[in-house]
């Protein structure tokens, strides 16, 4: 089976600064893939290239076998690629239902767009239920808490039923309980959908990731299961800034693990 998302030789050059440098990535149908890496590793730039916000200097992005080069952002969304942003952007003057309805309506005919929304569609109702926003459905989304806004943002993605979801730090600023719920939701989504998540929170990653891709300074550093990536000496070096000499010596692995990746206890 061909991968849902295939990135080949992707490079982005911001006036001499190589944000991405020949990145190859392939994500299979139904995967829950985590993208990690230190600040400036190019994680968000990679997602920007997939969604069309940034134009790559070289390389190609293929979605379900189709090249996305030159396609406008909204056309990529219409193909089935949805994304969320680091800071949740919901339409604050509109109510929660209106936000979700607008997200769902993008496939409606122009004529239908000029009519008033009379009911809560089944899709919107289900998403309200799924994101736990039913109680605040008719409130302006500007009055929601940060966590709720992030859930609404995810809900606006879900209601569009994209085949590929790209989430940029979906649990940033969420409470431990909200993180657990989000993680459970992501696992539930993977399978039917293909999900790519940028995340800094290592505890979250350990708990929910299937496959992890590590980026560093615009290059692909490592890829594999959480354990594989964690035991990769190159990844450790990047995260801990250890010299090569130290790395070649027998450093106690569990200590490193605890220091670099935090503990699960954090999110309990």
């Amino acid at each position, binding site marked *: 089976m061909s991968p849902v998302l295939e990135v080949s030789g992707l490079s982005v050059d911001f006036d001499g600064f190589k944000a991405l440098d020949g990145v190859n990535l392939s994500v299979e149908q139904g995967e829950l893939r985590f993208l990690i890496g230190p600040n400036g590793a190019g994680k968000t730039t990679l997602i920007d290239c997939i969604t069309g916000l940034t134009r790559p200097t070289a390389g190609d992005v293929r979605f379900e076998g189709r090249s996305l080069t030159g396609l406008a952002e*909204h056309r990529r969304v219409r193909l089935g690629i949805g994304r969320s942003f680091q800071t949740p952007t919901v*339409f604050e003057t509109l109510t929660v239902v209106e936000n979700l309805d*607008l997200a769902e309506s993008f496939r409606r005919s122009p004529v239908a767009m000029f009519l008033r929304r009379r009911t809560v569609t089944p899709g919107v109702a289900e998403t309200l239920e799924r994101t736990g926003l039913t*109680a605040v459905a008719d409130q302006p989304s500007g009055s929601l808490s940060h966590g709720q806004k992030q859930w609404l943002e995810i809900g606006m993605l879900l209601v569009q039923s994209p085949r590929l979801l790209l989430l940029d730090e979906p649990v940033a600023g969420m409470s431990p309980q909200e993180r657990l*719920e989000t993680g459970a939701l992501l*696992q539930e989504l993977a399978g039917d959908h293909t999900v790519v998540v940028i995340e800094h929170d290592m505890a979250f990653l350990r708990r929910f990731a299937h496959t992890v891709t590590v980026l560093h300074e615009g290059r692909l550093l490592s890829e594999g299961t*959480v354990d594989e990536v964690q035991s990769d000496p190159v990844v450790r070096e990047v995260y801990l800034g250890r010299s090569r000499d130290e790395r070649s010596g027998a450093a106690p692995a*569990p200590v490193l*693990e605890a220091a670099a990746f935090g503990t699960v206890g954090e999110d309990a």
Partner: protein
Amino acid sequence: MSGVEIVPKSAPGDLAPPEVVVVPTPAPVARRRRTPLSMLAPGSASPWTGRLVFVVFAFALFALPNVLGNPSEIRQWAEWLCYAMVAVGLDLAWGYGGMLALGQGLFFGLGAYAMGMHLSLEQVPDGSLPSFMGLYSDYTSLPALWRPFQSFWLAAAIAVVVPVLIAGLLGLLVFKRRIRGPFFAILTQATAVIFALVLVGNLKLTAGFNGLTGFTKVFGRNKYAPETSQWLYQVAAVGLLVVLGAAMALVRSRYGKLLQATRDSEDRVRFLGYDPALVKTVGFAVAAGMAGLAGAVAAPVFGIVSPGQFDAVPSILMVCWVAVGGRGTLWGAVLGALVVNWTRVNVSAARPDDWQYLQGLLFVVVLGFMPGGFAGVLRSRYQWLAAAVTRRSRRTAPEPAFATATAGETA
């Protein structure tokens, strides 16, 4: 060594709690009590509120000429109703769509010229030239540009369709290139200036600076008859109600929500799968069509159509009406156009020299101290009143929560 290990090694699968799908965090649900006043409150969900206000407004509009009585005053009001139409359209573009269109004079003028050309031809026998052409030009037969305007219906259609097309084309060009904010404002302002220059420059076709005048016959009626003022007023009133009704429906539609969403975050709209350029272009074109219709109605009301009415300064004043009335509320736009023009006429009649200063002061005060315009002030006053009424009704009922609060304080 293994004692340092804090991270439990386990497969990710067994960590996933299968029963925890989503536990909604309980959020405070504001249960608003429905009092007669709160049901009327602006922004309340019931569409009946808007409809009721609309019906009352329509009655008031048609009753007004009976109160005024004086034909010249009725004609004056007809003019202001036309301005209100422009303001409603402009509010759609600016208040709801975030597009500061500083050149609505272009579209208002196109509509007015379309109808003005028809009226000029009405004054002379079929097939002959409008009177100014005998003075300024050597045309022997009606120029091709003028021919469609022999028909009233064609002229009326052109008055609306041409502004829509021009705005549509301009909008696509500008918004597809992601030009927005002040650049869009300056660009539209320039179009109004160019329009006035083109009119002045083409003396033979447009009568230049003097414009089209001498409409003694308007649609087969005598311009000076009192009934004609009354009739024109009614046409303007119907026009305003149509424009306002259409704008209200548009604002409530999914498209209306999308337009507001585009105003607030264009990028987010893009990543919902919509093209913001298209959304904005439609809004701008609708505003232009409304201005065109207003112009067509205004031409016979003005009795003269000249470039000075449609260039930069009047275009900016149109934005000021909306700002004073309250952008983002359609009623605010109507209110702004009527109040500012009513004040202008009455103040400048009493103190001709002071109006300009007063107008400037008005805008500074409103923009500085009442960002929501008159509508914003009315709304907050109204909410204050509604809250006061709610408090009063609560005071009559026993309030157990009060007692527990004081008990808690002493404890």
